């Protein structure tokens, strides 16, 4: 080669730079420890662009398998063209599959005008990794050193990429392996868990069965093919009186009475030989034998199970001696009941819910002199008195329809044709749902009572006539007494007056007092007469406007001597808003007088508390006035009856006072009643309507 001295120096520098670049390139793989292809590509392209001052450098890696190819491009100066890698790739496209050696040396610049000198280099053997393309605007590109650098770089990249690919494949294999191992481990763990669960389930089931067997109230005994006991639960011990451990290995026959043992042995043997069962295996009633030799009824059920090719028989044995006793008791009670029904001194019947008679006790049959068939044939109403048949049948139909208790009185024909009165009682028995299940009935002979009632009724009528007659006499006596008292006072006062006048010297003041009393008592006697006349002659009632408070005041004044003498404290609360009532002054006075005097007398026997008499009046509604007389006496034993005539609690009373009072108040369109007070004593109250027109 022909080289100038200056050129020579230049040549040396160029070669030195080339060597430096080559060293740099050879150092690059140290940076590729991660084995990432993108890192390899990036560092390689950057290095080439810088070392060779290229205008562009492009790399394209073939995709592995279905992967898309990876393209990267670098332009000198600006990075803005990176985004156009794909466009550049598209320019190269029709060359890419061709052998790089056959590429043209020039290609149009992807940006701007003119051409680029390009050097394509395959990566890997026959370019199977990809291709790298370096481009420069320089016409002398590539120089020899540049081609060398490019070749070395391509080789370095190939090795690096190949290694990366290999590493990646290795990594894939390793991770695939890991995945497989993990999957298998999970499968094994799951299988293990299932197995454990199964073991636990089985244990639980066994425990459950053990608990069931052990806590069963029935004896559970398992025997082997020889008839020897393999297992016996606690209940077995309890029922038969053995420790369960005592029984293991013993023949089953130990639990049977002597007389059952042979037949058990024979039957057991036959069954094992022929499969023929000599007894029912479910709920058979047999007898067991306790350790103490006691025999008792049992109910036995068997089951058979094969274990290791040998049969195991398990029996469930229930002690039914209690049940047997209960059954016996029930039967005894039924016998008792039927005995009671047959001996009860009454006629008993039963009927179906629809009312059809289905049982008659012997007494009923004896009374009627019939058989149950006869009743069924002719119908029960035919045994009744013709006058009672229809009403009784109707009452019974009503009871059957409603389920209500049945109660009638009717005459039932006796065997000799005589009819007697019976009280018929029927009661329905209900099930838990309230449905009638049966009717139970009783017939009670009330013939004598019925006759007695009749006699009594006649007697009552006679008595009431006698009372009416007596009333007149007694009433006359009462009137006589009423008049006689003031009259006696008048006469006595008159005599006293005369005596005072005749005295020496005359007692004028005393005589005058006596004369005044004569006038007073005489008037009172006149009042009494007038009152009595009014009582007997309703039409003579005077209808005048009256102030009840005034009447109360008068009566209290009249009785002030009495209250003082009997040490009765009188308290009044007379309403100021009372409206006038219309009525007869004397009669209403009599009512007030009677009620107050009654109250005073009711407290005669009171010694342990103050004798208090309260008299009140008020107007509870615009239309009525109310008067109350409340004593602190012994109260009323029978508040409902005291207004009846001749009802008296007094030794010398006639029992007419309150009856008359009530008739007076009734005649005045009012109401009179009595009740026991909340404290001691009784309260008598009456209301009267206020005068029409005064209500508002």
């Amino acid at each position: 080669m022909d080289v100038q001295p200056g050129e020579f120096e230049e040549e040396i520098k160029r070669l030195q730079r080339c060597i430096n670049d080559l060293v740099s390139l050879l150092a690059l793989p140290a940076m590729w420890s991660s084995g990432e292809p993108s890192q390899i590509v990036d560092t390689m392209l950057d290095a080439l662009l810088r070392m060779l001052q290229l205008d562009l450098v492009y790399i394209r890696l073939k995709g592995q398998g279905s992967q898309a190819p990876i393209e990267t491009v670098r332009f000198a100066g600006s990075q803005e063209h990176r985004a156009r890698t794909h466009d550049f790739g598209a320019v190269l496209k029709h060359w890419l599959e061709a052998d790089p050696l056959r590429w043209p040396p020039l290609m149009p610049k992807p940006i701007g005008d003119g051409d680029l000198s390009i050097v394509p280099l395959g990566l890997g053997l026959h370019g199977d990794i990809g291709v790298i393309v370096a481009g420069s605007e320089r016409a002398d590109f590539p120089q020899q050193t540049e081609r060398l650098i490019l070749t070395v770089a391509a080789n370095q990249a190939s090795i690096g990429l190949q290694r990366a690919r290999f590493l990646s494949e290795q990594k894939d294999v390793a991770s695939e392996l890991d995945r497989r191992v993990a999957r298998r481990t999970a499968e094994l763990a799951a299988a293990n868990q299932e197995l454990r669960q199964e073991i636990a389930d089985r244990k639980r089931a066994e425990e459950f069965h053990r608990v069931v067997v052990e806590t069963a109230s029935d004896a559970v005994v398992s025997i082997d093919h020889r008839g020897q006991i393999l297992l016996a639960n606690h209940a077995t011990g309890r029922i038969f009186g053995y420790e369960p451990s005592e029984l293991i290995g013993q023949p089953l026959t130990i639990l049977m009475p002597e007389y059952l043992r042979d037949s058990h042995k024979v039957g057991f043997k036959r069954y094992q030989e022929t499969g023929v069962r000599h007894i029912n295996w479910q709920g058979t009633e047999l007898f067991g034998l306790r350790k103490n030799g006691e025999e008792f009824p049992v109910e036995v059920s068997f089951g058979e199970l094969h274990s290791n090719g040998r049969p195991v028989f398990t029996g469930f044995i229930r002690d039914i001696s209690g049940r047997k006793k209960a059954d016996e008791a029930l039967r005894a009670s039924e016998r008792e009941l039927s005995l009671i029904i047959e001996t009860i001194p009454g006629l008993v019947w039963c009927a179906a819910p629809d009312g059809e008679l289905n049982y008659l006790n012997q007494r009923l049959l004896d009374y009627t002199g019939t058989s149950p068939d006869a009743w069924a044939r002719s119908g029960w109403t035919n045994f009744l008195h013709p006058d009672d048949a229809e009403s009784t049948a109707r009452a019974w139909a009503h009871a059957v329809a409603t389920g209500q208790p049945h109660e009638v009185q009717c005459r039932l024909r006796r065997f000799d044709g005589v009819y007697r009165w019976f009280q018929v009682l029927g009661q329905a028995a209900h099930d838990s749902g309230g449905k009638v299940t049966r009717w139970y009935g009783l017939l009670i002979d009330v013939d004598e009572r019925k006759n007695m009632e009749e006699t009594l009724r006649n007697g009552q009528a006679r008595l009431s006539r006698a009372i009416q007659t007596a009333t007149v006499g007694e009433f006359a006596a009462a009137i006589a007494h009423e008049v006689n008292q003031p009259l006696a006072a008048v006469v006595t006062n008159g005599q006293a007056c005369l005596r005072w006048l005749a005295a020496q010297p005359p007692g004028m003041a005393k005589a005058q007092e006596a004369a005044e009393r004569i006038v007073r008592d005489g008037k009172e006697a006149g009042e009494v007469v007038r009152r009595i006349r009014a009582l007997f002659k309703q039409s003579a009632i005077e209808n005048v406007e009256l102030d009840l408070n005034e009447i109360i005041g008068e009566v209290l004044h009249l009785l002030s001597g009495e209250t003082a003498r009997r040490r009765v404290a009188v308290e009044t609360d007379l309403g100021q808003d009372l409206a006038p009532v219309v009525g007869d002054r004397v009669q209403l006075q009599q009512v007030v007088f009677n009620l107050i005097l009654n109250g005073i007398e009711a407290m005669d026997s009171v010694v342990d508390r103050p004798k208090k008499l309260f008299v009140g009046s008020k107007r509870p509604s615009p239309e009525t006035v109310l008067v109350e007389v409340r004593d602190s006496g012994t109260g009323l034993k029978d508040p409902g009856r005291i207004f009846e005539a001749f009802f008296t609690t007094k030794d010398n009373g006639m029992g007419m006072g309150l009856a008359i009072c009530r008739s007076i108040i009734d005649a005045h369109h009012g109401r009179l009643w009595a009740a026991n007070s909340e404290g001691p004593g009784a309260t008598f109250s009456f209301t009267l309507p206020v005068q029409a027109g005064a209500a508002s």
Partner: protein
Amino acid sequence: MKSDDPVVLVVDDDHRVREALSSLISSAGLQVAAFGSAAEFLEFARPDVPGCLVLDLQLPGASGLELQQQLLAKDTPPIVFISGHADIPSSVRAMKAGAVEFLQKPFDDQELLRAIHAAIDQDRNAREKRAELAELQRRYNLLTRREREVLPFVVAGFANKQTGADLGAAEITIGVHRGQIMRKMGAKSLADLVRMSDRLGIAPTARPA
């Protein structure tokens, strides 16, 4: 008013009758106390003077007849019954139980006052007799035990000798007892002593047959 002025007690539940009776009885110069019921009457502290009870047959609470029964046991004044409408059985019972009179209302003042006076006289006599008896009893209480043993022999007419033999004492001793008895009892004679013993209910010793 003297200490033995009689008092008439009136029990009647009718205030009118009570007032009239009080007036009438006091017009005859007698003291009157009136009551409305048997209970009131029983509560009353009766003065220790002669008197009588005018009692209504029909009383509230305890009736007149019941009150009469209650009073029988005590030193009761004689009773004059008055009644508004006397029935025969009641009047018979009252009279049998010692009532002085049974009057029906209205009664005559003369009749009533006569009955009251008779009753008061009866009470006065009874009171005198009771006073006499009380005096005798007082004197009898003065006797010694031995003198009380001797008394029945004396009033039976036994000689001192005989009495002494019976009682195991000397004749002369019995004579001393007899003298003491006569003195203490204030008897003027044997006949007087016999009468006194009779009043006191002391039975003479029976003579041997």
